[in-house]
């Protein structure tokens, strides 16, 4: 028995959400009195792989094969399942990223395992039961899922588990995976990535704005506030529907669901479908001129007033805060 964690890389580097997944998997390995192995696919330098030791991976299986250079979920799922068989893993952990969502269900089927997608805390192990908490009903509830198959696959929601540094070292081993040509029929034609921006699902701080801002020409102050904070920008659905902002910024029930440490909502009313995507944010700040806006009911901090006056002042205050801290 062992625990296996899949460590997805972004152009050869691991993001914070991956260190969270490794820390989480290490805690499960401790619960089960076993050790943690990580599997990495793609070209990742040794010193980057070695970082995983510090979060509790005892061994790293390094799969660096030409056929697996780009992410094709069918092929990657086969490799991870093969690594799970090889290490006799009873639990496989992934980060619930866009790629993770495409992998976890396939791995679960291959291993005949039970799956929890988007776990938000460690499993509860009582009387031989294995129960994992996740969000359901678009953040309006939590569900406790019991996995009763021998093997388990868990994908962890980013920003829901704290990184723990163990100070240990990992042993890196090359792993030659079997690649089936039938797993590689999908072909990637193009990848477009805005590299200068904090990506929304990974962001710890998010500044978001809605129809209250009147038009796309007024987003300058939103971007400035976000830049000052090192935050990602987001928006409500009508804003992206009107093409004021790209669809990739749309949060809510039909957009992206996020759980950052701080969510600042400017000129957003707080419709139930919007809240569905943001209500698990740890701290919510609402700036709205209408004191009756429903968003204030779920906010931690609120300012009632005109965003066009408040946001520029807030930017000035943050600049002087930054200068002094």
């Amino acid at each position: 028995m062992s625990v296996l964690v899949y460590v997805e890389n972004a152009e050869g580097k691991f993001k914070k959400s991956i260190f969270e997944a490794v820390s989480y998997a290490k805690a499960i390995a401790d619960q089960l009195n076993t050790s943690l192995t990580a599997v990495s696919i793609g070209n990742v330098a040794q010193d980057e792989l070695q970082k995983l030791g510090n979060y509790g991976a005892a061994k790293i299986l390094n799969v660096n094969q030409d056929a697996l250079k780009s992410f094709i979920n069918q092929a990657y799922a086969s490799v991870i399942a093969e690594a799970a068989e090889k290490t006799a893993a009873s639990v496989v952990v992934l980060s619930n990223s866009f790629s993770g969502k495409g992998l976890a269900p396939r791995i679960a089927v291959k291993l005949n395992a039970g799956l929890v997608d988007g776990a938000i805390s460690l499993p509860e192990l009582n009387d031989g039961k294995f129960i994992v908490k996740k969000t359901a009903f678009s953040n309006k509830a939590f569900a406790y899922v019991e996995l009763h198959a021998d093997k388990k696959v868990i994908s962890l929601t980013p920003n829901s588990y704290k990184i723990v540094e163990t100070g240990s070292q990992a042993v890196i081993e090359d792993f030659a995976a079997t690649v089936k040509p039938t797993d590689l029929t999908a072909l990637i034609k193009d990848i477009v990535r805005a590299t200068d921006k904090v990506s929304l699902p990974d962001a710890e701080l998010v500044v978001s704005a809605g129809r209250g801002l009147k038009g796309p020409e007024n987003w300058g102050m939103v971007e400035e506030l976000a830049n000052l904070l090192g935050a990602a920008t987001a928006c409500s659905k009508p804003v992206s529907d009107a093409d004021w902002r790209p669809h990739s910024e749309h949060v809510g029930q039909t957009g992206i669901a996020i759980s950052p440490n701080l969510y600042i909502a400017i000129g957003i009313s707080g419709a139930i479908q919007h809240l569905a995507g943001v209500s698990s944010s740890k701290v919510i700040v609402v700036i709205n001129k209408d004191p009756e806006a429903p968003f204030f009911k779920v906010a931690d901090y609120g300012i009632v007033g005109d965003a066009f006056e408040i946001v520029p002042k807030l930017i000035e205050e943050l600049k002087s805060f930054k200068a002094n801290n």
Partner: protein
Amino acid sequence: MKILVCISHVPDTTTKVTFSDNDTQFNQNGVQFILNPYDEIALARAIELTDNGAGTVTVIHVGDASTEPTIRKALAIGAHDAVRVNATPSDAFFVATQIAAYAKDQNFDLILAGRESIDYNGAKVPAMLAEILDIPSVSIIKKLSVEGNQGIVEREIEGGKEVLAIPFPFVAGTAEGVAEWKIPNMRGIMSARTKPLQVLEPVEVQTSSKIVKFETPAPRGQVTLIDASEPQKLVDLLHAEAKVI
């Protein structure tokens, strides 16, 4: 072109979510059910791709008889025929296995699903289904077109997008952008009543998960209001009290 669209039947987006039986069951009392919004987008795109006799669209749903109005809605929007697997689904693997059992010898070129159901939010059925059928899967897609015997899709990735060419058949989980929602017209609603709806009995499945308890989030504390003339107070509170900056 033969397309299968998987549809789920979910509580309306404005539903107040409560639980019964000691917080073990979703309380369906007074809840309005709808066709999952993402599945509606998938269906709309399937109809566009098969317009003017270019193909057929079948919808499939795994659920008991109470879900038939949702299936009829899909037929009213424009699906040609429907299949209902007569079972109360227990988890995503159960659903995927039922759909696979039906689809495996039907020669669909393309199987579309929503990116996730808005109730259990699993985002699991499409990839599980593809794995059982041993075909490619792709999610979350924002664009879908056909080029000969392959689909060209745009997939969302962290901070950007990826374009893939995938040979048919494959499974795709769709999101907004793929098509506009279609509102059924009178003719659609009338013809939906007579379109074929086949009811199949489920195949046997060993399920591997079960929801044992639900919980609603603890209400947030009172909001701390800050005067509009004192934004520095907000900065102070975010730093000293909330410790997020």
